[in-house]
């Protein structure tokens, strides 16, 4: 089943204002750089973005925030993204902050047909407001619901023409669950190979979850915190 599209423009056909997008990555690690650049170019607005964080001010999803293309962020971490924090505190941007594990599991649940599940994370905090609480084994849990998206945009290391994906190291992060949860899932990969070249035993995201795949033109792979030791 050939899922290959010729370039990023073709990959993002159908993305419109007001849509909900999942965008893979953790910080600047494992983010779909080419697709994000294209979203800026397209100028689509009022997006709801589900992404663990929003990159930094001038890279990653931070670029969409700068252009005011995002209406709402569903994330676990703002961190060092000043523009994100500013827009949130000023009320320009709606933000739904949720625990990182719940975010990951809610994406997986969306892809796996599980509409809701109980987790202890967030009990007794703002996160639990308005959510059902139930005690299991003497411990209170809250009911969390599945997340889905019109488009999920993920980044992988290698992919084949059938849409099978392999991620590298910690660039895997949220990408596999988001790939499962998109009505249309777009994968940009560093290296696109013919079907049969990847070991079927070693695929991280089976191609059934991927509708479109392309080889990204350029990956800057910016490092957020370069920490080293000397020899």
């Amino acid at each position, binding site marked *: 089943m050939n899922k290959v599209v010729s370039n990023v423009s073709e990959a993002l056909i159908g993305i419109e204002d007001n849509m909900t997008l999942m965008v893979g990555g*953790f*910080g*600047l*690690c*494992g983010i779909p750089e080419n697709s994000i650049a294209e979203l800026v170019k397209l100028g689509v607005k009022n997006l709801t973005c589900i992404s*663990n*964080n929003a990159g930094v001010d001038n890279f990653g999803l931070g670029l969409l925030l700068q252009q005011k293309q995002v209406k709402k962020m569903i*994330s*676990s*971490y*703002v*961190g060092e993204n000043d523009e994100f*924090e500013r827009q*949130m*505190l000023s009320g320009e941007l709606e*933000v739904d*902050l*949720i*625990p*990182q*594990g*719940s*975010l*990951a*599991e809610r*994406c*997986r649940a969306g892809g796996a047909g599980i509409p809701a599940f109980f*987790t*202890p*994370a*967030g*009990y*007794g*905090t*703002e*996160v639990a407001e308005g959510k059902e609480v139930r005690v299991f084994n003497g411990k209170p849990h809250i009911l969390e619901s599945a997340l889905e998206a019109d488009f999920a945009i993920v980044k992988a*290391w290698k992919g084949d023409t059938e849409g099978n994906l392999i*991620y*590298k*190291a*910690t*660039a*895997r*992060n*949220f*990408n*596999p*669950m988001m790939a499962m949860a998109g009505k249309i899932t777009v994968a940009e990969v560093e290296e696109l190979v013919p079907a049969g070249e990847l070991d079927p035993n070693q695929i*991280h995201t089976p191609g059934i979850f991927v509708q479109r795949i392309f080889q990204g033109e350029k990956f800057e*792979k*910016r*490092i*957020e*915190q*370069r*920490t*080293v*030791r*000397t*020899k």
Partner: protein
Amino acid sequence: MALDKVGIAKRIAQELKDGWYVNLGIGIPTLVANYIPEGIEVEFQSENGILGMGPFPFEGEEDADLINAGKQTITATKGAVFFDSAMSFAMIRGQHVQLTVLGAMEVSQNGDIANWKIPGKMVKGMGGAMDLVASADNIIVAMMHSNKAGESKILKECTLPLTGVGCVKKVVTELAVMEIKDGKFHLIERAPGVSVEEIISKTEGNLVVPENVPEMVL
């Protein structure tokens, strides 16, 4: 004399036990990895998707695809594993990680912790902290005893939005090691040269002080 960050990390490192999987938060907790007691083996989990986190890479060997939860470039040890975020929090939520060390803005005497938000002023987000504190059996908080204005952060009740409820077991500050049980802080050790009186004066929460409070041995 009050401990510096390294001192706090060194003291917390004494809590490590052989065979433990450990999650270290951003900041002081990260430093704990540098002071693993001799003769024991522990493995570090970082919630962005690695088990077997090693030291920082040598210059020129950084890999943008290999970072920790603080977005710092790291290395992987022999026998390390990479995985996705759902699997990572399956480990955490499923209590397969034996110890979590994290920072805090406030801790209360019943073990509540606040570390993600100052309403109207600052929002970092909870990241993985809410999952970690709601799940881990063994949570140690590394923090300063007071804020920059000199107000105690060791409180009867947290004033900031909570990260978790009744979950903190132990707090290590620049002044003291305290256990939390029965709704009170219990002073266990004091930093070298720090008086019990100073600790009492800087602790707003109920503090149980035994007759003899040993100095930390670092």
